[in-house]
């Protein structure tokens, strides 16, 4: 760890350290989860999940299938009762959240064929109308249907029946419905599944602009590039716990304490993981000189970090759990 910090520029390290520390719960805290437990048919799905999210922050929840990402989000949405722990969302316990509280949330569901007979604008305007009584002087609710359709790129489809939309168009409508009430907190469960790269890119722009307007976003995804690009902070949920919590850059940097060096010698491939690649490569050349070929020095990407951690945790490897725990500790 020390080496990593020494390698990073001093200013950057300081900044990252600050962003990575969990903020004390205050007026700025939108989500506060402590020791969240979920037991389902005598099986512990969540074994003490804890994290916070501040206003305007984009938090990405990563984890393998079945790790409990959707369960966690549904507890926060008030759709599911938890088995234990303290949860506060927008200052309220979701288990007792009323409709006034609900009006401040946006939820993007994973849908597939509901409202097939409705027209795009018709449904957006209808669902938006439920938010009108919750308009405040600060936040005008709902979002104008036409403006919103333009923002998600569905203006041309406004009069189409929803059943005739393509998968990507449907997903964009899901997002539009999720934000039609101008939420202060937005939940996105795998929002970009099934989107083509262009639509995905547009969606990323939309999420960033929402965050710029102080909307807090909690999303799950399987796309690590997307996580790295969007997240102010990444949480990795595995084995029922948050095993890593920090800004994407910091997670990668901490992971990249180990660098993989690959080379060939006399036509045979070699690979070595090292914390000091510069010294290692210099020694390599001192020993073998011109005989070294195909040199490659590669820092672990977020994907490498993630995959290693998850693989070790899933194998039930105790050392893996320890390593993950250490990584998680490092984030604090």
């Amino acid at each position, binding site marked *: 760890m020390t080496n990593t910090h020494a390698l990073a520029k001093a200013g950057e390290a300081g900044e990252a350290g600050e962003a990575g520390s969990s903020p004390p719960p205050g007026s700025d805290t939108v989500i506060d989860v402590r020791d969240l437990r979920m037991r389902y048919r005598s099986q512990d799905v969540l074994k003490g999940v804890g994290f916070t999210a501040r206003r305007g922050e984009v938090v990405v929840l990563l984890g393998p299938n079945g790790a409990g990402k959707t*369960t966690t989000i549904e507890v926060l949405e008030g*759709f599911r009762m938890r088995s234990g722990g303290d949860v506060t969302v927008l200052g309220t316990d979701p288990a007792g959240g009323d409709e006034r509280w609900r009006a401040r949330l946006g939820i993007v*569901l*994973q*849908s597939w064929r509901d409202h097939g007979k409705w027209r795009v604008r018709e449904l957006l305007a209808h669902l938006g109308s*439920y938010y009108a009584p919750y308009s405040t002087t600060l936040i005008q609710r709902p979002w104008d249907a036409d403006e919103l359709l333009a923002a998600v790129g569905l203006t041309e489809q406004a009069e189409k029946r929803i059943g005739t939309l393509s998968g990507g168009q449907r997903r964009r409508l899901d997002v539009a*419905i999720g934000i039609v*009430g101008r939420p202060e907190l937005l939940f996105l469960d795998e929002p970009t599944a099934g989107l083509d790269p262009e639509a995905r890119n547009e969606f990323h722009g939309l999420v960033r602009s929402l965050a710029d307007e102080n909307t807090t976003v909690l999303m799950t995804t399987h796309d690590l590039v997307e996580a790295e690009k969007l997240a102010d902070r990444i949480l990795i949920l595995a084995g029922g716990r948050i095993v890593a919590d920090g800004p994407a850059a910091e997670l990668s940097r901490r992971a990249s304490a180990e660098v993989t060096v690959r080379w060939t010698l006399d036509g045979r491939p070699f690979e070595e993981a090292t914390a000091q690649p510069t010294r290692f490569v210099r020694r390599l050349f001192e020993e073998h000189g011109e005989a070294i070929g195909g040199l490659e020095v590669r820092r672990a990407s977020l994907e490498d970090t993630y995959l290693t951690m998850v693989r070790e945790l899933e194998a039930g490897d105790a050392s893996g759990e320890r390593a993950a725990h250490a990584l998680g500790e490092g984030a604090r």
Partner: protein
Amino acid sequence: MSPVWYAARAGVRRGWTELRQTFTTGQDVFGYVLWTVLLMVPLFLNKDDPLKGAGISEGAFMLPSMLGMTLAFTGIGTTAQLLATEREDGTLLRAKAVPHGMVGHLVGKIIMVSGTAVFSMVFPFAVGVFLVDGVARQGGGALLTLVWAIPLGLLATLPIGAVIGSLASSPRTAAFLMLPMMGLFAISGIYFPISEMPEWLQTVGQVFPVYWVGLALRSALLPADAVVAEIGDSWRLLETAGALGAWTVAGLLLAPPVLRRMARRESGAAMAERHRRAMQRVG
């Protein structure tokens, strides 16, 4: 205006929108036409057979009875089917995600199903009245019966459908649960007078609302002499109101907690699981 009332008004708009949609969707319109044809076949076959001592044909007896059956079948069957389908496809979860969305959904569904029921009755009536003689000729006071009997019939049947739709695990299960209803129609005095059946079957038939809705419609649409085909030679309007009223009270007591329980358990994970199972069935 309170947010609940606001949502209820949104629900009224929702109901009208969905009614408009169903009448402009080819598949749905085909369904209404098919239903009419299915009803008209027995009507046509029996239009010249006289109903013993009643001064009308068997076909004439069937027409109002089948309209009553249509009401009950729509009230129970369509409600259950829509609810089960909309749980599976995510419509309900979407309603749950917006403030008081469930209120709007429920109000919308009541309007949608009621409208569908009335439309499903109007079409066979309009055709049938030209096929058989003596229906809807006495006019006036008798027709007033429709004004209370149709809404009361809907109130008695919709909650039953809501309960079935909430308890069914999938639209397939809901459809399966509708099968006993076919048997119920057979003993509810729809195709022939209930008085022609053994006494114990008459008793069973009179427990359920289908018989009473049919009776109310016959009293409104058939000539006064046709009463001789009924139990006790009476239209028994008070008993009709009592029986349908009892079903209404029972339904309104039972349906809200069942609906609430169903809504509470609705979640993305539950829906994803149903989605997975439904896709397995398709694939």
